[in-house]
């Protein structure tokens, strides 16, 4: 696990935001992954000294602004997911790749559940279980991040 500098982190975040802004249409919307969330969580686990709850929260705020939803909904969910990742961060880097994937799956589900809860509080329609489909595509994206930047776990000797 090589050390990372802040510019790579910020660049990947901006690329993720660009993908987030890509106009999706038709049935693909149901499967659209959370680009920014997965990149943020990756860096939170990989480099907690650079990306912490605050930047994750800010990334969520940008998602709120770009989707036009109530300010603070995604921010809260992103911040909480980053907190859960940080809470066990020193244990997570000891996990193997698939254990880590399972944990990230739980984080993504938590984030979606928080947003869903806040949306329902704000008088939105219940979209049903299909709202959780993007978690699968986001997990695939996680594997892609691991392929590109290396697993955020310690190599075994």
């Amino acid at each position, binding site marked *: 696990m090589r050390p990372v500098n802040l510019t790579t982190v910020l660049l990947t975040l901006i690329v993720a935001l660009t993908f*987030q802004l890509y106009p999706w249409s038709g049935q693909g919307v*149901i499967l659209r992954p959370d680009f920014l969330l997965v990149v943020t969580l990756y860096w939170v686990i990989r480099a907690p000294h650079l990306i912490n709850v605050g930047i994750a929260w800010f990334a969520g705020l940008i998602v709120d602004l770009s989707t036009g939803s109530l300010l603070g909904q995604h921010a809260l969910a992103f911040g909480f997911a980053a*907190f859960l990742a940080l809470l066990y961060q020193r244990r997570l880097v000891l996990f193997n790749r698939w254990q880590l994937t399972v944990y990230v799956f739980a984080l993504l589900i938590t984030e979606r559940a928080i947003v869903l809860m806040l949306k329902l509080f*704000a008088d939105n*329609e219940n979209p049903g279980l299909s709202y959780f489909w993007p978690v699968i595509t986001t997990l695939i994206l996680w594997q892609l991040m691991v392929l590109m930047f290396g697993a955020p776990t310690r190599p075994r000797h």
Partner: protein
Amino acid sequence: MLKGVHQKLEPQESPAFFVRGPSPFSRMMFFCALSIVLMAVDSRLNYLAQFRQTFIAALHPLELIAQAPSDWGMNIRHYFTAHGRLLDENQALKQEAVQHKVMLQRLQMIELENAHLRTLLQGNAPIIPKAILGEILHMGRDPFSNVIVVNRGTHHDVKAGQAVVDAEGVIGQVTRAFPFSAEVTLITDDNLAIPIQVERNQLRAIAFGEGKSNTIDLPFLPTSVDIKVGDRLVTSGIDGVYPAGLAVATVTEVRQSPDSPFAKIVSTPIAGVNNHLQLLILSLPESQQSAMPTEATQVKTETAKPAPTTSPSPTAKPSIENKPNASR
């Protein structure tokens, strides 16, 4: 002595082994509180609209980059559309244009006649709103809301509250205008109401969206109401936002349940939001301040026109003219 040292050291806290700043929990609590405050402010107060606008303007270049691949794809697809298909389409469009021209001739005659009748009745001339052609950028990134985003914003004089229509009928209303884009809430959104009229018998009502299901509801109409399946609902124009006579929906279901005094009337929107990209953003006829003086002048000219024939106005006119004379 040993005991004394022990007593001195005991109340000290052990320093953290890793220096990580504030603990994740305290950070999380702080940002949770911050986002709850933001949500409350955003939902109840209107302070954040300007912030949102400036931010979305700043995000515009990134949005352009994000759209570039799909734009290229569209261009390539357009390039490869078969020549024959374009010819066919051209033929069909020409035929349609001829048909429309014939209809337009009739419309012009009827409009002239209508204007004449209106002047006879001394009514106001109907306002024909100006329109801006826009294109749908995307169907909104939020799966919860029935919103589309169009590529016209405050730079193109789009304001919140304007009606949006396509060739078939009403699509919705602009709810947020950003510098280069605007958010259009569809008529199927449960927060949007639209005053309508049944085309067949001119019955007025207010239609509400139903949220997810792509239908429109007409609540609080008695079970004896004269609405049948297949009736066309058009805008009544009494709100000043939507011009009168635009198609809104067709009634698909009329149910009467014995335990409710109201009929359950379900209709589906006519406008095809999913079918094409272009739409028209109509300018607001009345809420503009510039519209108010023109209305006033209209009233003035109307009162001035019959002035020679009616008796009270000649007496009123000299009285106004006399005032400056008296002061001199």
